[in-house]
């Protein structure tokens, strides 16, 4: 009798715990998480190696995570999702190609790229912030076109700037940058390879890249625990309250845009060091969208985002994006992975954007 009661109690406790978990995690994340686990479970059926799949997923998470993190400051300050992230990418590309032009390699090359890109990102971000302060309420739409137009504007510069490095310029004309530039001979994987783990032939874990991401996460987390970070959150929550408390709303917003743009620049350089290529011209045009989708999928809203949203969102989004096309490909015995990738990534963005009003869950 007593045992029975205990049993019932246990079941009840378990039910309560499950309910709490669902409340905290939110249905979208649970469904997508289950789907992702299913995909991993299907790897033997699809004749894929689980270790390779896991490794690919982790590398992609590391590549993209900083770009997702870059969205947090602007969301918190009330500027919405930074669809203008390509502006930061351009600053990053400038840093990357200048570091290659100066023939710098290894970690030195990578960190010079970051170092060179930051002043550009600060200047771009400041100007972009001033613009956004004049269009309060319509930030996201304006930001999208800031991204588009800056990418187009820089297409001209990529052609005209007098770069000399033979790795980067078109061979036949001797001037103008190529559309993709390899970082292989310079600093590909220079960060990823630090303390990296290799288990067997197929599993690779880019420890250095994750440590660097963790460091940036810590810095952002710490920033939002300082006086200025608190003020930024308050500006996002209620600008009138912040103003009545003697906080300059425009200054905080500008600062958040600058931080976001700088993180975007760093993010794209880390992406390039892992991917092995710098994509210029129209390359950065649509690269802001996956980041936005990831953070929304992670449970952020247009007003509130935290580091947890970034990590969970990036993992789910990149996990699906890596796994779904290859599993489907193997099952159907065709090679349409690129088409699947586009369908899935755009579909997830669409899904995530329809969820955007759902608050911090």
């Amino acid at each position, binding site marked *: 009798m007593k045992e029975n009661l205990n049993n019932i109690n246990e079941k009840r406790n378990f039910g309560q715990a499950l309910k709490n978990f669902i409340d905290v995690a939110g249905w979208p994340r649970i469904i997508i998480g289950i789907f992702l686990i299913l995909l991993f479970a299907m790897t033997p059926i699809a004749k894929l190696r689980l270790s390779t799949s896991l490794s690919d997923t982790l590398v992609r998470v590391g590549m993209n995570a900083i770009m997702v993190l870059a969205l947090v400051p602007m969301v918190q300050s009330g500027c919405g999702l930074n669809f203008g992230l390509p502006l930061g990418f351009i600053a990053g590309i400038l840093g990357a190609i200048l570091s290659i032009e100066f023939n710098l390699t290894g970690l030195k090359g990578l960190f010079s790229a970051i170092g060179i890109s930051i002043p550009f990102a600060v200047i771009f971000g400041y100007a972009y912030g001033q613009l956004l302060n004049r269009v309060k309420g319509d930030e996201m739409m304006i930001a999208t076109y800031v991204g588009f137009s800056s990418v187009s504007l820089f297409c001209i510069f990529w052609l005209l700037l007098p770069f000399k490095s033979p790795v980067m310029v078109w061979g036949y004309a001797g001037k103008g940058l190529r559309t993709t530039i390899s970082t292989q001979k310079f600093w590909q994987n220079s960060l990823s390879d630090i303390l990296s783990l290799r288990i067997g032939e197929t599993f690779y874990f880019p420890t250095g890249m994750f440590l660097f991401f963790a460091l940036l996460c810590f810095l952002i987390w710490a920033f939002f625990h300082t006086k200025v970070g608190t003020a930024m959150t308050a500006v996002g929550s209620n600008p009138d309250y912040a*103003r*009545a408390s003697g906080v300059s709303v425009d200054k905080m917003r500008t600062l958040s845009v600058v931080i976001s743009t700088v993180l975007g620049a760093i993010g794209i350089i880390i992406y390039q060091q892992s991917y092995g290529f710098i994509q210029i011209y129209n390359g950065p045009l649509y690269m802001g969208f996956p980041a936005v989708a990831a953070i929304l999928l992670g449970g952020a809203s247009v007003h509130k985002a935290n580091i947890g949203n970034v990590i969970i969102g990036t993992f789910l989004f990149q996990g699906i994006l890596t796994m779904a096309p290859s599993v489907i490909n193997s099952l159907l015995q065709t090679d349409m992975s690129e088409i699947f990738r586009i369908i899935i990534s755009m579909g997830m963005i669409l899904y995530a954007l329809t969820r955007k009003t759902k608050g911090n869950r």
Partner: protein
Amino acid sequence: MGQKPILEMKEISKEFYGNRVLNSVSFTLNEGQILGLVGENGAGKSTLMNILFGMPVITQTGGYSGDVIIDGQKVSFNSPFDAIAAGIGMVHQEFSLLPGFTATENILLNKEPLKYNFLVELFGSRMQTLDYEKMRHEAIKAINKLGVNIDPDMLVAEMPVGHKQFTEIARELERANARIIVLDEPTAVLTESEAEILLKALKKLAKEGVSIIFISHRLQEVLDIADKIVVLRDGKLVSEIETNKTNMKQVVEWMVGHSVDSKAKDSIKKNISDEIILSVKNLWVDMPGELVRDVSFDVRKGEILGFGGLAGQGKLGIPNGIMGLFPAGGEVFFEGKRLDISDTHKSIKKGLAFVSEDRRGVGLLLEEPIDWNISFTAMQVQEKFLKKLFKGLIKWRNDKEIEDIAKFYIKKFEIKCTSTKQIAQQLSGGNQQKICLAKAFVLDPKILFVSEPTRGIDVGAKKLVLEALKEYNKEHGTTIVIISSELEELRSICDRIAIVDEGKISGILPPTAELEEFGMLMVGSSKQN
């Protein structure tokens, strides 16, 4: 009048976020009866009516327990449409009318009589046209039933508020089977004569057999019109009584829970120094709807100065201008030194503080927890609640101190909440106001501007807020400037009262002055012109 009960609510209970807002409330409503529902803000009146009307906010937050019985049958509404179908009409505090439509169109919206034409044969019944003749006729019938005089062809946008209210009630009546009508603060926006007409109309309706639930803050009205009064306090039913068996004083006591002492002015004479702490000369403020034209006054150290006057005359613009929240000009001297009134940060730093009349818009971070709301301004301006790391290079937020100060004020002001981490949005108006006050007290100001401190909050919270201000003034010697529309409130707390009219000060009186004198000042200058 029939004695048949039409609506019974039995042991209704409801919880929001772990806060019990209704606790086993039961009452009955007979056919043709007018029931006055009274209680302080947050007593549970609106929640009770939302349950009756099947508002989605109830089901979304976990439903309720207890029974709603109509005509002897238990019902459970999932949406307002179910409630409307069962013959319940509700007139909300905010108008839900289409401003670009006429009274007729609004009254008959979505149940217009239709006319046949040949297109129906081709495209189906959606092509029927509206029968304006008949619509007008039915609208007039509904308006006449109310016994008021509204032009059925007038656009709602052009109507005075009173007529909008009538149109809304007429619409609820038009629903052929409306047998119970709930009116939530219907007279709040009406002038006295309009309110009178409304009350008359309601009595007429009741005689025709319609049952009415009437919610109002104006107790006199409730006593005048209701057959029966239901008093709620803290989610509990305190009393259900025939109106002729009770009186105003008793009802107020039930509402507040303790006997209300008559408005005795503090007889203790305060010693106010002649030192002038704030001197304002030729202030103008461009605050929309509250324009300040040319205001000059001095505030003595330690006094409580009141600003009264009619709405829209500029009294609210004065503190908003001095604190730099709206464009302003003129000269302000604080402790003998010129104050730059465009720089809010500096003003707060020098010892000015402001509790805004716009609680939800300016006063609170609605989406943030209580402790943040209380500590934020002091943190930003005075660098309180911060740990300095690396020789002050990094100013780290001290969450422990923030929580402690929040706990202190929650206890001191009896703020009803689940924890210091509860989101400000979830609190009732009175509790929100207490947080705004706590925010200002944490700043330890030399002069405190309080704008409409008791607007929209219940009797109990009102008393607590005024007491807290008085006590703060006495204990810390803080100078307080109160701006309020309620003259009685100013007279009970202030040392001097200035009346603002047409953006200027029309006179300053002691609180002991006669009511007529204040009244003359409020309308004084407009009469001279």
